[in-house]
């Protein structure tokens, strides 16, 4: 047995940071906050921590300028956290702003749970960010945000099941509660609502629902064991996703943030960790050595190529002529040689970037765009590369640190 995420590459942690930031950016897009300005102040009773303030201060959070400000700071801090390699301050600010926002949207007395595991994920990222600032980096800390989020997410399922067993007992399963919840949800006064709850009138729908409820409870109860059992994870994740889809269709409740975090209850994100070269056959990035843009691209790649996966050479070098032919410089500004495969233009850029792993693996998705479209964009930029980004008289000379990774 091994602990899920115990070996987490920094690139996968970065992917997780971006993933969580995107969940919250989507959330802030769906929940404008500014609509709260229309609430009656007399009924506005935010939960903690805003609720710890005297009421005269609480109601300041109904001011449009404060609501717009919260949303703006939330969006900016999440964007910074998503874009920068390390952004502990932005993550701490995001934690504070999102906690306040979640506190004030629960100001009418109903404390729902939908966003909380995603909020805990931000706390975990901020906590580790601050810890690293104080104590320095370590691979164990790279794993911590993913481990804590997976543990927190699964613990919330377990606590729910335990509450149901301890307080609801058998009656929750044997009474008509499931039918009542489903039918009442079908009549919920919402603009969009699923009417599938009405199907519980039919035995063929009602009985599978009733029978699956104790099964789901069992999986919820044991959810934290996803952390140490791959077999259990394999069963848990699809069952719980099906459960969330069923609650959307039959109860009109959807914890989409939980579903969005489900990939991190599996080992799937680790597929995006970069793989070190073990056979000595490093992919080679050939670039135009006098082009300002190409040199910046190489700097960008080298800074993020933690495992020194790539070797670099200029298109003006002898090795470029040997590997790509004499016309290489006329045809390319970037080329990639990976084993026996040669990639040019947009193929070269996207494949090279995607091999950096983590969030950069998403570049592979762009390979689905027709090559003519991609290459048209590439050619447009390449044709203007000297004019916009400058051109040097001589080829780039590698610094002493870079020399081992340069072939010419």
């Amino acid at each position, binding site marked *: 047995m091994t602990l899920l995420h115990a070996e987490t590459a920094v690139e996968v942690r970065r992917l997780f940071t971006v993933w969580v930031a995107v969940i919250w950016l989507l959330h802030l897009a769906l929940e404008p906050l500014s609509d709260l300005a*229309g609430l009656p102040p007399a009924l506005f009773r935010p939960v903690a921590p805003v609720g*710890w303030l005297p009421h005269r201060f609480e109601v300041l959070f109904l001011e449009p300028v404060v609501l717009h400000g919260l949303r703006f700071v939330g969006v900016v801090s999440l964007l910074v956290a998503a874009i920068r390699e390390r952004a502990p301050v932005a993550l701490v600010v995001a934690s504070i702003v999102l906690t306040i926002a979640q506190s004030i949207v629960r100001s009418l007395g109903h404390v729902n749970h939908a966003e909380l595991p995603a909020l805990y994920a931000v706390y975990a990222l901020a906590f580790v960010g601050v810890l690293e600032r104080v104590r320095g980096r370590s691979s164990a800390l790279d794993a911590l945000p993913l481990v804590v989020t997976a543990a927190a997410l699964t613990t919330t399922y377990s606590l729910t099941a335990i*509450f149901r067993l301890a307080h609801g007992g058998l009656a929750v399963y044997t009474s008509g509660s499931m039918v009542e919840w489903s039918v009442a949800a079908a009549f919920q006064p919402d*603009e969009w609502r699923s009417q599938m709850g009405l199907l519980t009138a039919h035995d063929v729908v009602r009985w599978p629902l009733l029978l699956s409820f104790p099964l789901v409870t069992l999986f919820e109860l044991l959810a*934290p064991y996803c952390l*140490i059992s791959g077999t259990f994870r394999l069963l848990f994740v699809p069952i719980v996703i099906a459960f969330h889809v069923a609650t959307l269709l039959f109860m009109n409740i959807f914890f989409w943030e939980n579903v969005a975090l489900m990939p991190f209850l599996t080992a799937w994100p680790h597929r995006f960790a970069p793989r070190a070269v073990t056979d000595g056959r490093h992919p080679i990035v050939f670039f135009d050595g006098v082009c300002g843009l190409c040199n910046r691209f190489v700097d960008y790649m080298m800074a993020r190529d933690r495992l020194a996966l790539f070797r670099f050479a200029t298109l003006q070098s002898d090795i470029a002529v040997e590997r790509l032919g004499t016309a290489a410089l006329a045809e390319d500004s970037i080329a990639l040689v990976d084993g026996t495969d040669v990639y040019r233009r947009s193929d070269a850029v996207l494949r090279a970037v995607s091999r950096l792993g983590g969030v950069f693996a998403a570049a592979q998705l762009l390979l689905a765009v027709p090559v003519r479209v991609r290459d048209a964009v590439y050619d447009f930029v390449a044709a203007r590369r000297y004019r916009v980004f400058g051109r040097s008289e001589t080829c780039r000379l590698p610094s002493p640190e870079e020399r081992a990774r340069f072939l010419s």
Partner: protein
Amino acid sequence: MSALEGVLIGAVLAPLALSPPVRQYAGTLPRSARVGVLLFFSLLVAGQLARMDQRTFPFVVWSMYGVEKSPRGILYEQYSGLTASGALVPLHPSSAFPSLDQGRILNPLRPAMRWLPQSQEARVHATMLLTAVARAVNRGRMDPVVTVIATRCELSADEWLRGVPFRCEEKLRFDLSETAGR
């Protein structure tokens, strides 16, 4: 808090926390990280057992579909508005306040509807919230809502399965002009 709940939480979480993979990983963490993680999970469990969502948020009680539904059976509310031209339009509180979806406005309205029309406090509460909803709806309307109507319907699950129609009762009706300035 119930003793059974505490025992079950311990029975599920303790073996995991003490399992070799978790202990091995915890051993690689600096002490401050271990303290932070322990504090976080203690708050998560404390929030569950304390039953004080309002004060312990974001550490709250996880209790979805945890207790049998009320013996009154299937209950739902409908909110509608009469416009200046006399048209009847549905009012959707969660659409008027998108930040208050997931029951964050509908659920607080429900208890108020239960005690109407007898309770003055419930009337004030429901009137204030529905006024806010109607005003939000009116922002985009040429033909504004002038009167708000709230109806509550109920039926037992057995009756519903037998095809008995819902019993609906108008619980509240007020003109927006009555609530001007609130």
